[in-house]
Structure formats: C-alpha cells, structure tokens
C-alpha cells in the first residue's frame, strides 16, 4: 500500500470509553504504548514521523489487534 506523503506524522489515539485495558496494544506496539498500573494504555502525545515505518506497522497491528477496536491512527499533516 503506497502512501502519497512520506512527510508528516501520525498519532495513535485511544477511545478511553471503549478501552477495557486488555493490553494487546502495549504488546504489539511497545515503543508507542506503555501501560499504567491498572493496565490501561499510556500513549505518548508526541507525533511519530510517518517515515518511521516500523512504528507505523506496529501501530497498525495494535489497531487491528485491539479487542474493543478502541484505537485509531490519526494522520497529522504537518511534519512531525
């Protein structure tokens, strides 16, 4: 799947109401997600550059793997 833009960044966003603290996102994208003591995800607010392909791939796996579909990838247009 090609991408028109390689510049810009993305952010992993969690819907805290849907999230039930399964923790799959932390296992699939440990560089983007850590968990708090109750098992809920802490996602760092700094955008990740789209050029970082491995991070984007991990993010995609996390979005797909979330049992509650609580994650989304938000594309940001300005360069990270």
């Amino acid at each position: 799947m090609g991408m028109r833009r390689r510049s810009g960044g993305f952010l992993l966003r969690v819907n805290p109401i849907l999230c039930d603290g399964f923790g799959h996102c932390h296992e699939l994208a440990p560089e983007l997600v850590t968990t708090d003591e109750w098992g809920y995800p802490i996602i760092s607010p700094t955008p990740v550059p789209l050029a970082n392909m491995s991070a984007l791939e991990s993010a995609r796996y996390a979005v797909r793997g979330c049992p509650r579909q609580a994650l989304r990838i938000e594309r940001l247009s300005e360069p990270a």
Partner: protein
Amino acid sequence: MALTSPYFWYTTRATGIVALVLFTLVVSLGTLVANRIGGTIVGRFELNELHRSVSIVAMVFLFIHILTTVADSYVSTGLISAFIPMTSSFKRMPVAIGAVGFDLLLSVWVSSLLKVRIANRSWRFIHWFGWLAFTAAIAHAFLTGTDTRSGAGLVLVGACAGVVLAAALWRYVGRPARAAGRTALSPLAAAKGGAVLEYPHSSSPAARLAPRSTVSPFPAADVSITERSPSPSPPAARASSGPFPRRPQAPSARRVRR
C-alpha cells in the same frame, strides 16, 4: 446427474470431526482472551491472533464438510438445507440443527470481517452466538453422526463438549472485575505497596462512604440571596428567599421513564 462416491461420505465425516475439534480450540482460546490470560510467557495478542487464525481454518473445514454433503447425491440434502433448517429430507432434525449452527457461525464470521466498520457493541452481541453455535454443533455431531454414538466417536464428542462446558464455567467465574486487572507487562505491575483499592463496584458499601460530616456551626439549610454592589454605597437590603429544600442525601436510583 447422480454424483456419488464413498469418498464424499468419508470426507464429510472426517471434516466434520476436525471442524468440531478446531471449534473447541477456538472457543477455548476465546475464553483465554476474554479472561486476559497471558502477558508473561505467551503474549495476549498471540492468543487473540491464534483464536482468529484457528477460526478461519475451522470455517474452511466446515465449508468442505457442507460442500461434500451437498454434492453427494447419495443423500438428498440440497444446498438450501445447509442454510435453512428443516429442508432436508435426509435426517431432517439433525441436519436442521447443523444448519442453525452454521447460520450462527456465519453471522459471527461476517461480523468479525466487518469488525472495523460496525460498532463494537454490535460485534460483541453477535459474538456471543458462538457459544450457541457450538452447542448446535455438538447436538448435530451426536445426532447425525453414524459413529459418534459409541466408542471413540462418543468419547471425542464428549471430550469436546466437556472442554467447552468447562470453558463456559471458567469464563463466568474467572471474569475480570469490570475488565482491566493488572497487565503483566505494566512497568508498574510490581505492586508498589499502598492499598490495593477495592474496585468501586465491590459489594461492601462501607468503604465507599464519605465520612459523615459533623454539624458545622454554619447552618447550611437555607440559601440566602444577598444583593450587594461592589461600590462603597450602603449595602442593599438582604432579601431572604425563604427555606429552600436541602439536597436530599440519597439521590434516587429508580428507573426512569422519559
């Protein structure tokens, strides 16, 4: 034209048994995922992925099972009888049960394919049908099968039923309190001392009550309205608004009808 061969029959029976065993595995894995097993040796996401992958394999075996039954003209089960119950002239009831199970499984499968697009609540509602589908599969295996009523066949079907029954029990008993619970991978997972707070939904009310306030010398019953201008003019008359009812201590939890 008649198309028949004993191999259709062998394939139907074999794929049926394999599908049953695989679905047993699928349900067991699903229970492990729901009860949040894993995180240290095996990743939770791995169990989830296994659950998804095995279910695809099981569906393939199920399709072959149905196709070979339908294609075999030795028994008159048309394609329609795989979807609509009670339309088969051969073993009407057992095939009907199988059809019901298949329909339920189809709905689970399609909803999972569209999981990203539909509301998570709807997906979860449909996903519960999996248990029903498995029950139908056990009944179908027991009633339809020619060799599942004795010997190794019976033991196999019985074992599958037993495993899923145990899984169902554990699913209920071992369910996490309102989700979460600690994930083994949390950097704060090692209990850092401090009270393990009882989750707000716990049954004992005592821990959650705020301490009852002692009576303060400032009577809080009335709300008075005073109108004062900020300039140093004499203060306007204090208008008392009369006794206002205090906010009741126990907000009602009655069901609401709009």
